[in-house]
Structures are given as structure tokens and as C-alpha cells.
């Protein structure tokens, strides 16, 4: 059995390590040992779900040892993590009956498999998004519309391109160490076929030997290519990038062995990384910082 020690602070910055496990594991049993987790964000939660789902998809099995810290477990409950995790993991530890935790929950862990799920997410987020974006980030009241448009487009990416299930979650929290201010983290991941395979039939031949995960991400992220011949397609990611840039936020997409990012001045991430552990599916992370 593989044992993976889940990082104590499982957030958007270290979730790669969880996704790497999904890439490496074949069909064996894997234990995600989360006993020492003290902090987890939406990317961490969905990363765990995706890693477990990938292992299960390959015929393996995944176990999750719950954190010792009861606040973290209660927060996982609050975020709806266990609703999804029980179908993926054999859970070791006691799931609390009651939820507790942050008031910055913008969107609980929500599965996305069909367009109706996207509608439900957009309906759901209206309840809290306006208040949180205004009070935590200092964004204007109208920003809830742009946020909803971003959310709709990233969720549709799962339904239209991934052809596999995925999850979305969003949370506002104080990113004290990194930025000294509040951020909203929006995380969307799927266990579908990834960008390269989605674009392969339509575009691979044109790229010849250069075709790979990194070029596929560049094609979609920078040039708006999609597998559909319709010229009206491919605007979603382009416009998300534009809006995220207006808010001085960051957006990264990891798929296959590559990751591409639009990097604001406060971030030191590389704009393009190749040679990562193969991750089937796609991971989209958006970080929106509070206005200074």
C-alpha cells in the first residue's frame, strides 16, 4: 500500500503534491494520511477528491485518514467535502454530525457533471458572493455578476471539454503570510481527458512534433482554440483571463504534464511549466486578492 503524507497546510500552493500522487499511482491501494493537516483550502479539498477519483478510475482504491484537528474536520463537513468523499475514499476516522467553520464560504464543494449543475452553482453563489466579494475583497457590488460569469465558464469547461466529472469550490480567507490581505480562491478540477486530448483531433496535426500538454494549454489559454470548429467557441477562458487581470488576480491551469499561468506582479509562479507528473484531467485555480 502507498502511503502519502498529506501536507499540513494543504492549499493552492502545495496541491500539486497531491495531484502528483494521482499521476504516479497505478492500481494499488493508496492511503492519504491527513492526520497532520492543520489547514486546507478549496484547492486542497478538491485536489484530494480528484486524486482519489483518479486512483479509483484506474482500478485502485483510496483511503483517507481524517485530520486529528477537529476544527479542520468540522470545516471539511461545513464545505460539503464528505458528501463527495464518501463515494471515493474509504474514510478512516469519525465524520462529525455538525458542521462549523469559516463564514467566508462562497461555494461548497459541488460536483459538476451536467449543465444543470452549472445553473445550480450560479443560483447558489448569488446568496453569498455579493456580500463576501464586497466585505472581504472590497469589490463593487456589481462584481458578483462578473464572478458568476467566471464561475459559469470554468464549470462549463468540465461539461463541454473534460467529458468526465469534476468539482468546484470557492472560499474567502485571509492570506496573511503571502499577501497580508484577503483572497478568494476558486478551484475547479476534473478527472476528464485533459486539454491535450480534448484538442487533439482538431489541432494536433497542425502543431506536428511540438504538440503536447504545454502547447495544448497555450493553444487554449492564449489563443482560445477549442475542439469545436465554431468560431464563437473558445471565448470563455480568454474572457476569464481578462477579468481576472482586471482584478489583479492569478489564474493557473494544470493538465497532463504542464501548467500555464497568468501571473500578477504579487506572484512568482512561472508562466509555463512542463515535465510535471502526468495529471489526467484539468485543474483550474483562480485567486482574487482584496483591493489594496
Amino acid at each position, binding site marked *: 500500500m502507498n502511503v502519502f503524507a498529506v501536507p499540513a497546510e494543504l492549499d493552492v500552493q502545495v496541491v500539486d503534491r497531491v495531484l502528483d500522487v494521482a499521476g504516479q499511482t497505478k492500481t494499488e491501494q493508496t492511503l492519504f494520511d491527513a492526520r497532520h493537516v492543520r489547514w486546507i483550502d478549496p484547492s486542497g479539498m478538491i485536489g484530494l477528491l480528484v486524486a482519489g477519483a483518479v486512483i479509483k478510475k484506474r482500478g485502485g482504491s483510496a483511503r483517507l485518514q481524517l485530520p486529528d484537528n477537529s476544527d479542520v474536520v468540522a470545516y471539511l463537513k461545513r464545505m460539503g467535502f464528505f458528501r463527495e468523499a464518501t463515494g471515493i475514499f474509504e474514510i478512516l476516522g469519525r465524520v462529525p454530525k455538525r458542521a462549523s467553520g469559516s463564514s467566508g464560504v462562497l461555494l461548497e464543494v459541488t460536483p459538476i457533471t451536467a*449543465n*444543470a449543475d*452549472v*445553473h445550480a452553482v*450560479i*443560483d447558489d453563489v*448569488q446568496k453569498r458572493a455579493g456580500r463576501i466579494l464586497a466585505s472581504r475583497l472590497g469589490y463593487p457590488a*456589481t462584481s458578483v*455578476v*462578473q464572478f*458568476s*460569469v467566471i464561475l*459559469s*465558464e470554468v464549470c*462549463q469547461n468540465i*461539461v*463541454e471539454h473534460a467529458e468526465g466529472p469534476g468539482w468546484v469550490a470557492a472560499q474567502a480567507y485571509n492570506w496573511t503570510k503571502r499577501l497580508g490581505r484577503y483572497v478568494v480562491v476558486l478551484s475547479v478540477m476534473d478527472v476528464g481527458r485533459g486539454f491535450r486530448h480534448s484538442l487533439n483531433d482538431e489541432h494536433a496535426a497542425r502543431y506536428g512534433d511540438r504538440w503536447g500538454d504545454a502547447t495544448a494549454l497555450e493553444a487554449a489559454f492564449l489563443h482560445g482554440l477549442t475542439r469545436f470548429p465554431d*468560431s*464563437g*467557441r473558445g*471565448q*470563455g477562458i480568454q*474572457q476569464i483571463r481578462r477579468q481576472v487581470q482586471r482584478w489583479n488576480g492569478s489564474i493557473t491551469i494544470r493538465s497532463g504534464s504542464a501548467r500555464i499561468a497568468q501571473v500578477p506582479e504579487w506572484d512568482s509562479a512561472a508562466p509555463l511549466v512542463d515535465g510535471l507528473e502526468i495529471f489526467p484531467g484539468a485543474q483550474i485555480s483562480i485567486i482574487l486578492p482584496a483591493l489594496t
Partner: protein
Amino acid sequence: MNLTPLMIDVGVLVGKTVTSLHFHLVTRPTGRAVRMAIEAQLARAGGQSISVIDLSDVTILDFSCADEVVAKLLQGHLKTELYEAFFMFRGVRESHRDQIQVVLERQALSAVAETDTGERKLLGVVDAYEARVWQYLEDQGPLVVEDFEIVFPEPMLGDALDRLRGRRVIFSNPVSGQYHALSQLVQELL
């Protein structure tokens, strides 16, 4: 002038398409279903029609739906010779505008929009001269060419009017020779 007027409430069509308490025009299949419902109404109207596509009740409009309900709707009707359809989009909020502008630019289209405050604008691909000609008609119309020539003596006026007519953001009456702003037609007919 034998234009059939149509008033199409997109909020109602969204309500028939998805089970939701809110009128969010999101996801491509929803946009496609709404566009097809509009097209069915237009097909019944036949001949020449002018439609007010009312977005007043739409809270969230994403890019996929803007592409379907605005760009593809216009594009489809510019191509067909079966009937001549004119559109004015009503209740366009500031929060819709970016999405509509982007999808129109992408397909090199233009559209007449009436904002939620009642202001009329030409969105999409339009040069400054065309915009001025369009605005003049909007403010002063109906007009014949000679009326325009008083304010726009440039030789390029004719081409600008042809382009605006070709994109169906103005209406030209072949009998009277008058040009009409779509908003004026809507006021008269609806």
C-alpha cells in the same frame, strides 16, 4: 413597409428552459434553446420582422449564452434569404454589455441595444463615422439621403449607410426611400 413586430421576453424563455428561481442566462445548451425558441417565433412571422429581444429580467449573462442568443441569432439571420429580420436588444445592463460586445466583435457583427436606462447604443464592430451616422438617424430620423448629406457631406456617406443597412442596424424603406432607426420602428409598431 410591412414589418411584423415581435416582442420576445428572454426571461420567460429562460424560465421555460431551466428549472430555476432566477433568470440566469448561462451555459451554451440554455443559450441554444433560447435562441431556437426565438427562431421558431421568427419563422412563424416570416417575411420582414422587427423583434425586441428583452433581456430586462436576465441577471447573469455568460459569454456562451451571449454568443448563442446575440451573435448566432444575428449571424443566422444575416445569412438567410428566406426572411429579413431586424433586432433590437432591450434591457441591456452594464453587466451584460461586455459579454455582448465581445461576442459581436468576434463575429464582426453590430447590434442595436437599449440599455436599462433607456439609452440606445450601437454595439459590436462599428467605426466612428458609422456610429455618428447611426446616432444622427437615431436622433433625427426618419431621414432620406439628402437629409444626411447636409450633416455628412463626405462621399463615404453612401457606403456607411449601405454597411449599416447590410448589418440591419438601420432600416431602409424601398418605397419611400427613407431610412429609419430601429428604435423608431419599435416605437411605432410595438
